[in-house]
């Protein structure tokens, strides 16, 4: 995954912070649509579609949202069962209130997830952390996020190798019981703590005194403000007139 697809043709179009702010406004206004307003929700699909094409995001990226979509379908299906009030007909097919409201849930879910996937693809995580820092989020939380992101891949590989070793020694489901898993997770926990102690020693030797020095984020420029105001105005127009 590229670190920043906002860098289009080698030049950043807008900063990651502004993409994040725009996404928040987009999601808030999308979700504020009435639960029976399919048209009003569908209009909002235009914006993620535009960004997807503009920033040339691979379609494969959308696959990451599939588990989330399944859950949305599950919750939305409840409305079809519990709201059977007849509201109209689509050709020969009778349409109930539940069908409309569940379609709205699915549309809202798909578009908000699409926008979130665009954020995860285009905005580097460090940008989000810097934005949080500017918004006065406690430093300990930011440090936590940075360390977590840094060691995520390392520990995932270690866990995967532990799992592979256990699977090699198991016969069918024998060897995969809770007791064995608890022992493996326990030893993995000890290794993690030892790693944390090593990291702490390394950090102290490099002058760590309880706070992490972070390069300040680039302040939002005129271009960023223009993009944010234009996008917010567009979303408001879509929300009010459709």
């Amino acid at each position: 995954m590229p670190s920043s697809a906002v860098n289009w043709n080698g030049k950043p179009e807008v900063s990651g912070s502004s993409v994040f702010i725009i996404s928040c406004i987009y999601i808030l206004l999308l979700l504020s649509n009435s639960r029976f307003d399919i048209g009003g929700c569908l209009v909002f699909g235009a914006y993620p579609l535009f960004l997807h094409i503009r920033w040339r995001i691979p379609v494969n990226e959308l696959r990451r949202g599939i588990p989330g979509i399944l859950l949305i379908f599950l919750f939305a299906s409840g409305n079809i069962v519990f709201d059977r009030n007849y509201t109209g007909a689509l050709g020969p097919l009778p349409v109930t209130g539940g069908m409309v409201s569940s379609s709205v849930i699915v549309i809202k879910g798909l578009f908000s997830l699409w926008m979130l996937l665009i954020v995860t693809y285009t905005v580097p995580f460090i940008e989000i952390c810097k934005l949080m820092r500017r918004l006065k989020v406690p430093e300990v939380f930011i440090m936590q996020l940075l360390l977590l992101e840094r060691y995520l891949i390392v520990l995932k590989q270690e866990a995967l190798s532990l799992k592979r070793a256990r699977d090699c020694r198991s016969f069918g489901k024998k060897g995969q019981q809770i007791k064995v898993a608890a022992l493996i997770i326990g030893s993995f926990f000890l290794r993690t703590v030892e790693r944390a102690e090593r990291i702490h020693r390394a950090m102290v030797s490099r002058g760590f005194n309880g706070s992490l020095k972070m390069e300040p984020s680039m302040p939002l420029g005129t271009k960023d403000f223009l993009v944010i105001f234009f996008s917010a105005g567009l979303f408001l127009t879509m929300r009010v007139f459709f």
Partner: protein
Amino acid sequence: MHMSDALLSPVVGGVFWGVSAGLIGYSARKIRQQDDERSVPLMGVLGAFVFAAQMINFTIPFTGSSGHLGGGLLLSIFLGPYRAFITIASVLTVQAFLFADGGILALGCNIFNLGFFPSFVAYPLIWKFLYRDHRSSIGIWSISITTSIIYLVFGAISVILQTLLSGNTDIPFKVFSLFMLPIHAAIGIGEGFITAGVYFFIRKTRPELFFNGTQKTGRGIAVLALMTLLTAGVICWFSSSNPDGLEWSLSKANVTESTSLTGAVYKMAASVQNQLSIFSDYQNSVLSRYLEKYTSKIASSGLGTTTAGIIGSLMVCFVAFTAGCLIRLWNSGKACHRQQ
């Protein structure tokens, strides 16, 4: 139990963003007071550990399916409530912004559901309350399972309430609960088993790793919470249906709601509200009226006054707790400013 944005309304999502931000600020302040810089890398790496440990699955007996560690209780046992809450919040933030798991608006709700209940409810009120060093193995197993079930079931109830308050679903509270609660109770049993297993392993090998902080407020809060739930859930059965003093005196003075709401100020305020309101669902949307509407909806769905009372009490607790945290933060900020 990750909620998605589609199930939430902006009001509910925004309120829980505020609540979770308040809790993060409060926990960060407590951690700063403890002044233990060694814990910083430990928290970060343990957050990654929770992610990674979820890959080590195990078979669930008699079902043929498999489960994995959740990690909420385990983190609280080793890091204490404040560090555990920050760690869980960071895991959920990374899941949302790196893996698109959950949602931007739903992040506040997810942090609250998966972080608040294990760190600030289940760990101090159940684990710490029942745990003794000399407890037998069976005792520890049962405490671990009970604590895990309670925090997962509380989290599931919170998901149900947040979804119902958002008003996007027509699923009745009873059906929603019947669908969600047994699943989460079963997950809690698995979580309790694996947490206890890891606990025994660490106790044998490196017992010094356990969190030894004191919890002064545990018992007091437990008693107060119990009294509140009793009052809201049981004593409300005996409440009078007659009008209260103010309503009685207004009715005697022939003042009705319609006469009191036709003044020029009211009209002007209503027109400003209508012009500013872009959220058609929330016209006339004073939060109290909105909550009242859905609370009464839940109450009329067959659960009665008890549920409405308990839900109302929990909401007041959340709001009061967040307000308290914010006021304390504000005061401490002013104190620091004066010292400088």
